[in-house]
């Protein structure tokens, strides 16, 4: 039953992502992407990572995609004109298409190379309790570092996002 579910969810994720990529309108793309993230969260859960699944929904689908929507709304991005929806002309696409196909082929072959991969993924369930012990036990330092990272990101975004007028005034006062 789980195997069937896995393939189903896999299919949904792939189709959602494919649609997300090819949309002309960024909003549609974001929405499709949210769908694919939900399917992905379920996959995580299936693979015995309930906490990660939850976070996937909260952080990715919830926060990041919403942020994307804010930006798209704020910048009133008109859907890209018909002409260069998928890049300027068809034949300019060729190298990228070729490249992607070659990559797909190589990667799939590469994965198949190692025999050990063929074994199945056991049913395993990581309880939040273990997760917590591990997170704040072995990786305590890493958590602190990540918090720094988030802080820097916030400061950076704040600075970059500051409107032009305020920054110019600050420069004149400073000079």
């Amino acid at each position, binding site marked *: 039953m789980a195997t069937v579910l896995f393939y189903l969810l896999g299919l949904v994720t792939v189709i959602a992502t494919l649609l997300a990529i090819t949309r002309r309108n960024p909003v549609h793309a974001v929405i499709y992407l949210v769908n694919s993230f939900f399917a992905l969260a379920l996959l995580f859960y299936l693979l015995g990572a309930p906490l990660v699944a939850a976070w*996937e929904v909260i*952080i990715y689908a919830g926060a990041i995609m919403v942020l994307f929507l804010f930006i798209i709304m704020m910048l009133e991005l008109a859907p890209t004109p018909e002409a260069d929806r998928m890049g300027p002309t068809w034949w300019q696409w060729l190298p*990228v298409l070729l*490249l992607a196909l070659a990559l797909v082929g190589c990667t799939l072959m590469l994965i198949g190379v190692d025999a050990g991969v063929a074994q199945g993924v056991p049913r395993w369930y990581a309880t939040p309790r273990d997760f917590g012990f591990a997170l704040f036990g072995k990786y305590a330092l890493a958590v602190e570092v990540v918090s720094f990272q988030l802080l820097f990101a916030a400061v950076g975004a704040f600075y970059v996002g500051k409107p032009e007028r305020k920054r110019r005034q600050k420069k004149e006062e400073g000079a």
Partner: protein
Amino acid sequence: MIVPLEHVLYLSAILFLLGLGCVLARRNLIMILIGVEIMLNAVGLTLVGASAFWQQIDGQIMVVFLMAMTSAEVSISLAMVVYLNRRKGTVDVRAFDELRG
């Protein structure tokens, strides 16, 4: 035994390459960022699959850190998109090519 690890890897590979395709093909800055997101999620999937396969918790913790990093990255890059859009009035990548030899 849900599914052989191979298939998990195939799935994440496909997702990753779709993300890569999006990054390479699209001219719109937002769509490129979305492509990046897709690639990162594909990596997350691989990590979770491997963590389940080896029954080690570390994989999942890596995903958490991955998510933290992704959110930090998205916030800055979207701030930059806003800034770039204000400067050039467009989000088309080809408009921003001053940084050249």
